[in-house]
């Protein structure tokens, strides 16, 4: 029983990230509206970013900004005192790219609506087969 509890405490974060990721994947597969699909894609992205950020977390460590780092310093820096900054860097770029792709996707949605007057996937398929 105690082992199970220890396992849940150690891993429940990862499980909840997976739940979030699956919500996004479900929206991308099963939703009919193109905008809903895009929101699902964004949820999927943020879940993966959350997973990466949580990899860098260390118990008992502080923010990745060196204290007293500006100017002369002679204190020895211990790596265990600071959170791992590398996943943060990767994910920072991922977020900005995600908003750029989201903007382009919105532009495509507006263009599709101009041409077919709908954003529903099934209606879109009917209109496409009519032509």
């Amino acid at each position, binding site marked *: 029983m105690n082992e199970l509890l220890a396992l849940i405490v150690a891993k429940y974060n990862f499980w909840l990230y997976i739940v979030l990721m699956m919500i996004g994947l479900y929206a991308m597969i099963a939703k009919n509206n193109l905008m809903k699909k895009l*929101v699902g894609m964004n949820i999927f992205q943020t879940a993966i970013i959350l997973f990466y950020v949580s990899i860098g977390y260390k118990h008992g460590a502080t923010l990745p900004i060196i204290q007293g780092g500006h100017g002369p310093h002679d204190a020895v820096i211990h790596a265990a005192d600071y959170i791992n900054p590398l996943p943060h860097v990767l994910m920072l770029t991922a977020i900005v790219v995600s908003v750029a792709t989201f903007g382009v996707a*919105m532009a495509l949605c507006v263009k599709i609506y101009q041409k077919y007057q709908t954003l529903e996937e099934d209606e879109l398929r009917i209109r496409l087969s009519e032509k």
Partner: protein
Amino acid sequence: MLWPIDLIVLTFVIFCAIAAITVRDLLGTAILFSAYSFLMCLLWAVMGAVDVAFTEASVGAGVSTVFLVAAVFRTSRRSKD
């Protein structure tokens, strides 16, 4: 970090995600998605990723929502599911 904050915010995030993809009004989706992004930003700030949280607060909760609202304004607000 405190595990109750983590757990409560994660639960809210999951509720917001489910609500954002089930609500039938696309403007509602935009606002719920904004709330989702902001809670996510809170979660990252609690985890110590302040730069990532700052980016998400300005990009995800700010500009993404504006793009979504602008696109809803130019297309339709209804959604079948």
